Each structure stands twice: as structure tokens, then as C-alpha cells.
């Protein structure tokens, strides 16, 4: 038997192969040594890099509230969906053996998600098939939507679709105070209004959070480290009172509906402190969906447009004249119906002539000729100086963006007719806020205050970052002059051209204005007017000052006819809401007296307003209640109250138990 071919030879050969196997084992050991001991740390680091998920975590944007803490703009964290297209390939690991479906995951995902996301399936499909590793699909989704998407992903085991949390802004009162609040872009950045102005303070904070993730991007166990929650942002309190704002907005809407004006603005201010209690502009928008609106709806017409104020400017001129001792309230004047200067003739609004009148009458009946005369007497330089002193020609500095400075003549370039027309409020361009502020200087006794809209900004732990307070810019006129003008303006309403603004029982001071509107092409637009009214109440110690401006009302266009009634109605609602009783013959009690508890008559059981499911409400019996209680009940039912007299309620126009829709008018007689 040849040695080569026996079992023993075979055994020897198997020994050689055994050596080969042993050699392989040794090389494995060497390789492992290399990998684990020598390169171990580096490989571990690389492994860490791929598993550590660095996440940006946001805190929600700071809330904006009204002065009473009512929510206007709030943020919650919402989910945003993004795709990692490369990761969408079906990973065979995900399926139990033999059960991997034959499918195109991108196509299927696109088809399933399209109806939920309301995006076209083809669009989704092309997004999923894109190159790259990150693409937003839909940001800031509603919670229900995000849950539905999450469920679809889970049920179908899609990979490559992930969520990030982002701050989403909700404007709880839709269009209310839209221009003041502004709106926020998709990256939580304020784009206008307070959102823009205070963006750096309230924008959601960003922190980094590291945690260990699995290959599908999910957290492994309790592995979050550095998981400190991001700090909560401060809250902004505006000086706006949302109840008053509601009334103002409604008033504007009614005015536009009645007059078909192109645009409008209204501002409500505290004349002593400069706080803005309400500011509204039309056309308006819903900040929740600001991108659906044209640019002109986004403009805050209270501060961002200029117009020629017209007769509303006359009290300013009057104050100048009084201070310069050129006139007194009783100075006589002869109104011939026309005033000639150089090549122009200035007529009164009704083209009439009142003959022999006093200066007070000039203000009362808005006599153009008299004011033009006064303007000439004051002269270009002085008139411009006073105008500037009253704050025109410069932005007020309110904490909102986009404020216009207004346009004044250079006094040295003014021709004689220009001075005359300036006297009647044409030939200068002002913003509604400037105009109101100037009137407030008259109302508060001669100080020009800086209007402000941010009451305070408070951090979650109570620290006050910003606090608004009264700032006096300068003294404009003396107290005596102010008082004189106030008295004249009161007569405008009680007896003069502003009678339509009268509210029984309240002492209101104001001024009407009907100005020709500037045309885009230069000069004045024929037949188009700006109708405005400015006023404050109570006239001897004003608490509220309001200006309302309507641009191009159709049909009836005089300020006294269109703006003043709006002023009256809205102001009445505000006064009712605040519980300010109309005065009786002996004069209006001060607000402080009114607010004292002993002046309220307590009734054991206060009747309630029953709200029906469809929003209508049942009128209770008001008999025996005092004014404030009636006002409160009216507010609950969202009715409109017209009160008569003062004291306790005795009679009501609508019997108790009647069911009325909101905004219905209810008259109550007090004795």
C-alpha cells in the first residue's frame, strides 16, 4: 500500500488543514486585537457619532396678552414633518422573514399621505425621490393631522419620515387687533407688529439636546443627556383692553358696511398716560393665515399712512392762536362765506356764511374762513413751529414698526395760500395717531405724551423686563389755553357741528373733519373725502380719547354724518362696559367715586343671562339693579345697551325672558 493513500496519510493531511484553520483563527485574533484594542477608541467614537442624535429643541414663543391677561397670541409646540429621502428605502430588517411586501415605499407613502397633508401625491412623490437627506414636507401641523400621519407611518412601517417640534402661533381672537399683534413667519420670527418689535424677547429659545438614537432615529432607553428643558419665554402684556378693542373693531365694521368706505382706522387712547387702549385698521386680516391676504390689508392705517386731517386740525391752530394772544374765545369775526388769499378762495363746508360770530363759533361750526384768517395771522413760521410742537412731522415712537413721520411744509417755501389752507388742515400730512395725540395734549391740559402700547413684559418667574409708563415729551400749551379749547370742543358736540356724536348724559368734547383726499396723481381727488372725528370724554376730566377716520365713504361723506355717529356708538359701548354712568344734571361723578364699592347696590341674588346653545341669550329682569350690574349682564349676553337716566333700573324695552341674538339693542331706563 502506497504511503500516500492510506488512512494515516489522510490523517496527516487533515493535520495540515487543521493548521490552516488554526492559522486563520490566529489571524482573527490579531485582527480583533487591532480593532478592539488599538482602534477601539476611535471606532467607538465613530459609532457614537452615528448614534448620538443632536437635536434642536425649541421652547414656544412668548404669549401676547391684553392688559387684563386675556390671551391674544399664544404658541404651542407643534410637529413639523420632514423626509430623509435616502432613508426611505425599505429596510428588509423591518419585516419578518418572508413577509416583505413588494412595494415602492415612496409611491405608497405619497399616496397615503396626500389626503391627510392636503398636498398632491405627485408632489410628495417627487419630494421623496429627491436626492439629499433633509426636506421639509409640512411644518407646524395641527395635532390631529400630526397624529394621523404618525399612525400611517407606523402602520405601514415607512422609514425616512420624521417629526421635529416647532413653535406654532395661534391668534386666539382671529382678526382682532391684527395690525397691533402682527404675525409670525414659519421660522418663529416676527414679521410685523408687536411680533416684530419684541421678536428678540419673545422668540422661542433654542437649546441642544443630545441623546443616543437607533438607526431609525428613535431614542434608546433613557439615554437623553443634557435634556434640560429650554427656558420658557417671557409674556407680553399690551395696554390694549380686548373688550374695548372688540367694540372698536365692530364699530369699524359697521361703519364700512354703512358707508362703503375704502379703508378706516380708529385709535383709543388714555390722554393722560398715553396708553393705547385700542387700535384697529381696515382692511384687516387674520394673522393665523396672513399669507392669504393682499399687502394693503396688512398695513396698520393708524400709523403707517398719512392723510390731510382737515378740520380736525383746527383746534391745534386755535391753540396756537390762543397762546399767541391773537384770539380769545370771544374774539369776534365776520364770516362772509369766502376768504380770498392770493389766487385762491376758501369757502365754508356748506358754502354758507354765518355773519358775525365769535371765535368759539368758528370752532363750533368749523368755519373755514375764520380759520384761514387766523392761520394767516399766525404766519408760516409760527404755525409750522406750533405744528411741530404738537408732535407732527415726527413719528410718535410707539413700539410698533412702520410708523410714518408725516409731511410738513418747509415754512420758507410756503406761499400765502398754503398758509391759509394749513389753517384749515389741508396741506399737511399726518397719521391718525399723531392727530389723536395732539388732541390729547389739549385734553390732558397741555402735555404732549408719548403713546405706548406695551404695558409690561414679564418672565415666567415674575421678573419685569420692560414696563411702559407715561412719558411727557414736552409741554405744548398752557393749562388755561387747554381748558379754553376743551370747552370750545365740548360745544362742538353739544351744540355745534358735532351734534351727531352726542350721547345723552355724557360730556363729550370733539371735532369733526371732512378733508379732501389726496390723489395719487397729485392734487386732490375729486369727490373723495376723508371723514374723521376726534373726541374725548368726559370733557372736563378726560379719561378716553378716540379718533376715527374713514377713507372715501360713498354717498354721505361728511365727518359729522359718518364718523361722528361711529364715535358715538362705540364710545357708548365702551362707557357702558366700563360702567360709567351718564351724568345727571349736577354733573358727572368722578370715575374714582363710581368705582368705589359702596356705590354699588348689592342685590342678594343677581339674575343671570341664560346663553342658549345657538348663541342667543335670554334677557333677565333688570329691575332694581344698578348701572354696573346691568352693564355686566348686557356684556354676558353680548347685547347693545342704550341707557337713559341714572340710578336704578326701572324699565326695559325688551321684556324679561325674551331670547335675543347677540348685538341686539336693549334700552333700559334708570331712575
Amino acid at each position, binding site marked *: *500500500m*502506497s504511503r*500516500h*493513500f*492510506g*488512512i494515516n*496519510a*489522510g*490523517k496527516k*493531511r*487533515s493535520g495540515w*488543514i*487543521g493548521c490552516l*484553520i*488554526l492559522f*486563520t*483563527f490566529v*489571524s*482573527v*485574533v490579531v*485582527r*480583533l*486585537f487591532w*480593532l*478592539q*484594542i488599538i*482602534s*477601539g*477608541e*476611535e*471606532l*467607538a467614537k*465613530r*459609532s*457614537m457619532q*452615528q*448614534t448620538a442624535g443632536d437635536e434642536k429643541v425649541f421652547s414656544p414663543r412668548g404669549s401676547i396678552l391684553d392688559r387684563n391677561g386675556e390671551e391674544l397670541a399664544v404658541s404651542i409646540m407643534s410637529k413639523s414633518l420632514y423626509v430623509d429621502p*435616502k432613508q426611505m428605502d425599505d*429596510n*428588509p*430588517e*423591518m*419585516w*419578518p*422573514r*418572508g413577509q*416583505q411586501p413588494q412595494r415602492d415605499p415612496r409611491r405608497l407613502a405619497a399616496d397615503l399621505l396626500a389626503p391627510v397633508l392636503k398636498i398632491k401625491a405627485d408632489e410628495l412623490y417627487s419630494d421623496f425621490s429627491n436626492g439629499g437627506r433633509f426636506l421639509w414636507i409640512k411644518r407646524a401641523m395641527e395635532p390631529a393631522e400630526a397624529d394621523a400621519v404618525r399612525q400611517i407611518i407606523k402602520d405601514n412601517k415607512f422609514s425616512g419620515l420624521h417629526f421635529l417640534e416647532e413653535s406654532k402661533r395661534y391668534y386666539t381672537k382671529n382678526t382682532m387687533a391684527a395690525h397691533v399683534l402682527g404675525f409670525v413667519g414659519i421660522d418663529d420670527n416676527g414679521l410685523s407688529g408687536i411680533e416684530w418689535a419684541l421678536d428678540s424677547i419673545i422668540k422661542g429659545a433654542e437649546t441642544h439636546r443630545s441623546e*443616543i*438614537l*437607533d*438607526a*431609525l432615529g428613535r431614542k*434608546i432607553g433613557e439615554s437623553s443627556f443634557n435634556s434640560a428643558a429650554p427656558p420658557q419665554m417671557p409674556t407680553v402684556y399690551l395696554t390694549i383692553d380686548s373688550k374695548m378693542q372688540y367694540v372698536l373693531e365692530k364699530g369699524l365694521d359697521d361703519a364700512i358696511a354703512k358707508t362703503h368706505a375704502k379703508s378706516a382706522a380708529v385709535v383709543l387712547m388714555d390722554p393722560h398716560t398715553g396708553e393705547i387702549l385700542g387700535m384697529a385698521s381696515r382692511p384687516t386680516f387674520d394673522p393665523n393665515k396672513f399669507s392669504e391676504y393682499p399687502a394693503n390689508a396688512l398695513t396698520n392705517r393708524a400709523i403707517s399712512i398719512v392723510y390731510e386731517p382737515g378740520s380736525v386740525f383746527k383746534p391745534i391752530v386755535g391753540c396756537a392762536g390762543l397762546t399767541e394772544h391773537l384770539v380769545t374765545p370771544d374774539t369776534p369775526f365776520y364770516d362772509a362765506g369766502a376768504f380770498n388769499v392770493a389766487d385762491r378762495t376758501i369757502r365754508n363746508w356748506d358754502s354758507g356764511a354765518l355773519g358775525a360770530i365769535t371765535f368759539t363759533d368758528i370752532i363750533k361750526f368749523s368755519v373755514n374762513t375764520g380759520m384761514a384768517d387766523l392761520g394767516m395771522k399766525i404766519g408760516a413760521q409760527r404755525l409750522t413751529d406750533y405744528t411741530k410742537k404738537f408732535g407732527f412731522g415726527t413719528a410718535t415712537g410707539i413700539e410698533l414698526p412702520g410708523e410714518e413721520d408725516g409731511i410738513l411744509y418747509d415754512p420758507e417755501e410756503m406761499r400765502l395760500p398754503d398758509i391759509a389752507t394749513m389753517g384749515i388742515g389741508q396741506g399737511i400730512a399726518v397719521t391718525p395717531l399723531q392727530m389723536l395725540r395732539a388732541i390729547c395734549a389739549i385734553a390732558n391740559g397741555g402735555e404732549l405724551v408719548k403713546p405706548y402700547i406695551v404695558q409690561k413684559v414679564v418672565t415666567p418667574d415674575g421678573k419685569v423686563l420692560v414696563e411702559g409708563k407715561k412719558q411727557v415729551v414736552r409741554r405744548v400749551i398752557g393749562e388755561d389755553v387747554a381748558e379754553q379749547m376743551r370747552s370750545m370742543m365740548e360745544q362742538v358736540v353739544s351744540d355745534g357741528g358735532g351734534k351727531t356724536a352726542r350721547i345723552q348724559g355724557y360730556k363729550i368734547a370733539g371735532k369733526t373733519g371732512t378733508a379732501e383726499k389726496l390723489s395719487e396723481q397729485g392734487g386732490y381727488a375729486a369727490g373723495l373725502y376723508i371723514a374723521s372725528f376726534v373726541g374725548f370724554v368726559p370733557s372736563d376730566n378726560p379719561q378716553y380719547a378716540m379718533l376715527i377716520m374713514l377713507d372715501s365713504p360713498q354717498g354721505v361723506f361728511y365727518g359729522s354724518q359718518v364718523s361722528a355717529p361711529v364715535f358715538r356708538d362705540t364710545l357708548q359701548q365702551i362707557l357702558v362696559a366700563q360702567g360709567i354712568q351718564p351724568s345727571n344734571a349736577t354733573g358727572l361723578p368722578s370715575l374714582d367715586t363710581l368705582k368705589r364699592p359702596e356705590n354699588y347696590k348689592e342685590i342678594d341674588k343677581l339674575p343671570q343671562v341664560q346663553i342658549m346653545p345657538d348663541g342667543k341669550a335670554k334677557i333677565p329682569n333688570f329691575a332694581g339693579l344698578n348701572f354696573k350690574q346691568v352693564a355686566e349682564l348686557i356684556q354676558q349676553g353680548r347685547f347693545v345697551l342704550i341707557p337713559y337716566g341714572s340710578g336704578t333700573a326701572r324699565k326695559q324695552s325688551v321684556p324679561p325672558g325674551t331670547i335675543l341674538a347677540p348685538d341686539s339693542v336693549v334700552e333700559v331706563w334708570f331712575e
Partner: protein
Amino acid sequence: MHKRFLIWDNPKDAILVLTFLLMALGCINVFSASFVEAKDMFDNGYYYLYRYAIYGAIGLGVMGLIGWWIPYRYLLQYRQIWYGIFFIMLVCVDAFGVTNKGAQRWLYIGGQSIQPSEMVKLSIIILGAGSLGEYLKRGQPVSLFAKGMCVPFVQAAVFAGLVLVQPDMGTAAIIFALMIGLYIIAGLPRIQLLGLLGTAVVGVIGLIIVAPYRFARVKIWLDPWQDAGNTGYQVVQSLMSIGSGGLVGKPFGMGSGKFFYLPEAHTDFAFAIYCQEWGFIGAVLLIALFLVLAAAIHQIALNAKSEKGFLLVTGINFLVVGQAVANMAMVCGILPVIGVPLSFISYGGTALIVNLAAIGIVIAVYQDEVKQETSQQEVAAVFEKRKQELVGKRSLPRRWQR
């Protein structure tokens, strides 16, 4: 055969202990490597562990059956029947097998999936040992071209071809390698061996050139980091997992590879998870276990008097331990990725049962050899006794002859 093996009385005890140890490690590793994926897919972290245990129990039963009951020569005798059965099974897999991860390897029988190619690997050993053992006994040179001698080779080629269709190049290569290994041991002439190697090299290069994905695989093998996101992904993940294990490994369960990063974490790449969690020391320990197992099986082989038994046991050594080292080499990047599981440690029902059956065969051979030796010794003892008697008897008459 009665020689001691290290600390054990005999190699059989060693093998049993080692097998249990390996299975224990396998249990732990399968659980650790799979619980994340199992929880995610089946809502039950123990899913794979549970199945490993069941298959293990069945395998142990088969091992017991083969090792202590059925004489192994029956297996050899009816090897052609095995050939027929597996041939049909492979055809079935190719025709309507279940696809998973790009290869059609499984058959669903009665709700459970089995992998015939694993069983084929063992059957190759049996076929080869049965046929070639004959020639080894006769002391004939074993040639690939002789009429009867080429049969096992052709059978292997047929199996390999059927498996290649799945497509599973790795297993096809293993089948070939196992058969060639048996041939070499049986005494394949060197020229033919060289010729075979040459053909293999040419063939492999040809295959690589023809199919671009194979070429990419080679490139990736040489430097997996160049495409760590895609084709090199599995190797890179494996290397990172292994490397991050360091000296003593990461805390149990916290190896990050299995968190969907490392594909096949509980099957072909189970070793990577093992290395991550037990570190270099753990890996060396496992290798030592395999080496000792190989040594024990080798001792049985060396002491076998039956040629067929010898071939059988040596072939099984290749199957169990040889595959193990091949898997380890692949997982740590020395070899390109081939679909070879790690015996006892990887999760795979059919493979586990097959490996245990193979151990059973080794035990059966051992038992048989011991029996043979014992009976030979008994015969020799009786003979010796008789001889002594006769010698004694001769001495007796001397007394009265004087």
C-alpha cells in the same frame, strides 16, 4: 480512544460540555442581539430567544438520536437517498422558495421556515465520507476523473449549482470547499489540486468581472469606509461594533449595533454584537472554545480506525469549526462578506439543528470506535488469556516430564 482529552475523561465529554457552553453563549448573544428588533417587529423581545431554545431542544434530540441510538453507518449507507431528498428540496426552493433579503433560501413547511442549504452542507460531508472512505480504505489514489471517484464531486457540483441559483454564492462556495477538502484528505493528486485551484481562481475572477455587484463587494472588502453609507454599510457597522467593544465590552444590552444599525445582527453578524458586548477578552474566550472543540473532534478523528468515520469526523470539523472561523474572519473584515453563519452563536433554526446533528455524528463515530476498540480489546484479552493458558499449560507438563 480512551486517551484523556485535557481535563476531560475522553473527547466525547469534552465535546458535550463545549457544545453546551457554546449553546449557552449562543442563547445570551441571540437574545442580546435580537431583543430590540424583536420588540419592534413582534412586540416580543424574547421572540428569537424562544425560537432558538426550541430549535436547540429539537437539535439536542436529534443529536441524542444519532449519537446514542442510530448507528451512523446507516446514514452512510443510505446516503444516496439523502442526496435524492435534498436534490428535490433544493429544486423546490429554487422553484417556489421564500425570498428574504434578496435570496430565495427558505421553504415554508407547516408554518416554519427551513433552510435546505444548511442541511445540504452536512449531507455533502456524509456523501463524501461515504464514497471516498471506500477508496481510502483500499488505498487507491483518488482522482477526479476516475469513473466512480468523481461521483461525490459531481454531486457537490450539482448541489452547488442549485444553491448558486438562489442566488447564494457563499453557500455554494462552502459546499465546494467542503467536498474538495474531503478529496484532499482522501488523497487527491497534487496536480489535480493545483488544477482545481487554478480553475477556481479563474472562475472567481470571471464571476467578479461579469457581475458588477461582486466587483463592488471586493472593493468594499478592501476598504469598506469608502462607501460607509451604502454598500460598505454592513461591514462598517460590524467593524464599529466590534471596535467599540474594547477590551471588556460594553454593558450588557447596550451594544448599539443591534439598534437597527447593524444588519443581520442576530444572524450572520452575531459575532460583531458578541465582540461589542464581551470585548476582546470575550472574543478570545469564544475562539478558545472553538479551538478546544476542534481539537477534541480532531482527536476523535485521529484515533478513528474506520476510514469512513475518519473522513466523516474530519469533514464535520471543517463544517462546524471551519465555518466558525470563516464567519469570524468575514465579520472582522479579513474576508469579504459571504453568507456564513457562526455555529451555535448565530440565530438560525436549521443551522442549529444541523450543527447539533453533526456533533451527534461525531459522538456516534466515537462511540462506535470505542465499541470497536473495546471489542477488539476484549478479543485481544480473550486471545491473550487463551495464550496465557496455553503458555501456562505448556509449562505444566514440564513438571511431570522431568
